[in-house]
């Protein structure tokens, strides 16, 4: 297998995903198959090929510096799991 349990755990941590007990072995197995599958890209000859990030060679359009958004906090916070006095709450962050 191209990936081992520790690598998968490292990736899961980077991605902030907790894998349930049963999920772990299956994830190692399936991710390894995916990685093996995409490994065939290494065969392609790509010297001097410009990487393609967008389907078009368009350039970024610029927006005028104007304020058009208005406050709609209460509406937006209806979806928030925990708020207090307009602040989104998370478990205390220690710096």
């Amino acid at each position, binding site marked *: 297998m191209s990936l081992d349990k520790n690598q998968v755990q*490292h990736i899961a*941590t*980077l991605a*902030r995903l907790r894998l349930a007990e049963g999920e772990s072995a299956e994830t190692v197995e399936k991710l390894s198959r995916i990685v093996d599958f995409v490994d065939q890209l290494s065969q392609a000859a790509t010297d001097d090929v410009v990487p393609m*990030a*967008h389907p*078009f060679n*368009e*350039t*970024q*359009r*610029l*927006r*005028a*510096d*104007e*304020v*058009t*958004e208005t*406050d*709609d*906090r209460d509406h*937006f*916070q209806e979806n928030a799991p*925990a708020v*207090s*006095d*307009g*602040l*989104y*709450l*998370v*478990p*205390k*962050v220690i*710096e």
Partner: protein
Amino acid sequence: MSGQWEVVIGLEIHAQLATKSKIFSAASTAYGAEPNTQACLVDLGYPGVLPVLNAEVVRMAAKFGLAVNATVAPRSVFARKNYFYPDLPKGYQISQYELPIVEHGELFIADADGNEKRIGITRAHLEEDAGKSIHEGLDGYSGIDLNRAGTPLLEIVSEPDLSSAREAVAYMRKIHSIVRYLGISDGNMQEGSFRCDANVSVRPVGQDELGTRAEIKNLNSFRYVEKAINFEVERQIELIEDGGQVQQETRLYDSDKDETRSMRSKEEANDYRYFPDPDLLPVEIDAAYIEAVRATLPELPDAKQQRFIDDYGIREDDAAILTTSLLLADYFEAVAGATEGKAQGVANFIIGDLSSALNRDGLDIEQSPVSAKDLALMLDRIKDNTISGKIAKEVFEAMWAGEGTADEIIEARGLKQITDSSAIEAIVDNVIEANPGQVAEYKAGKDKLIGFFVGQVMKETGGKANPGQVNAILKDKLS
């Protein structure tokens, strides 16, 4: 100890750009609003929303690039910097990585010996600011305010060309005055609009490779930059001399304890997984755009300083001080242009009495209760001998307190200088008569006593006698 160690510092300065709306959304950037009332769907990273770039940030970045003699990239690309933090709504920060908008700039500061020293500016790139976390008073929680999220930042990265805390501060001050001259940032450090991270390392003198560096995060005053770097340099030297090794890490400066400490977190080392942001296209700037921006560049601090020296004949260090802020420089020029007095005198008064009054009352130059025109008038009264330099201080304080113009105050308080020779002679005669012992000593060769006699005359006249005349008459009568 310091003789054996060389200090290497690079700064990453974050300047908030003074736009009305955010870098990728049309929400306001105004400071101090109620939490999350200036966080629109784009700033909140809502599902489905997309960024659109603010034209003004591109113009401002180009302006900065030209001001520091840098290359403004014809093509720059936004990338995502991926990490999780509650003040970072999307789980990534939109920044620039491989192709920043500004590269290869420079500026000049004075080194410890007063020689000009070139500091390279590696790059300056555009990015979005994060929100703020509030840790107090929320009972086991932190509160997240995303009003600041999406505020445009220009991150200005220096080469590791700085060799002391003093140089680092001089460089930072220079950048600070440039961005304010350009009008691209308000530079307000209390509000966090201008802050920096310092990369600090030490190495034995003569060693080529750099020592391991520590990054001190989020320094938001010139004083903290200086103190934090000085602390860090000493910490690293002591550590190495005691046989230890510097860790590459991020540290925080604690201003209460005046120390830096490691920001340990249980997370593993960051892996930001930068990649080009597929929601934004490359920014392209052509030569015509750059020339149009160049045409809007104001006179910059270095050029203005030189002009002050050449045109006004003031001292170099005074010219440097007067040109740190555009408004201060403008004030100086307004006074110097309106008064009959010498420009150096104007500089002295502004750097001395005016600056200390501003400092005392916590005011900026544009808030000065004494206008340039009124100050010029007062300096004219010194020049035409209506008042002495000493009396001028009293007049100035009264002007500061709002008692009127220099002429009104001189009149109302009867501060007009006594220039009538016969009146001064009479007082001098009285003083000589009243102090026979000192007269004898003076005549026996104790020349310094002239100061004593001048002081006595001034005391008698309430400081209003013309000091030059008093001196001349005294010397004449005592000889």
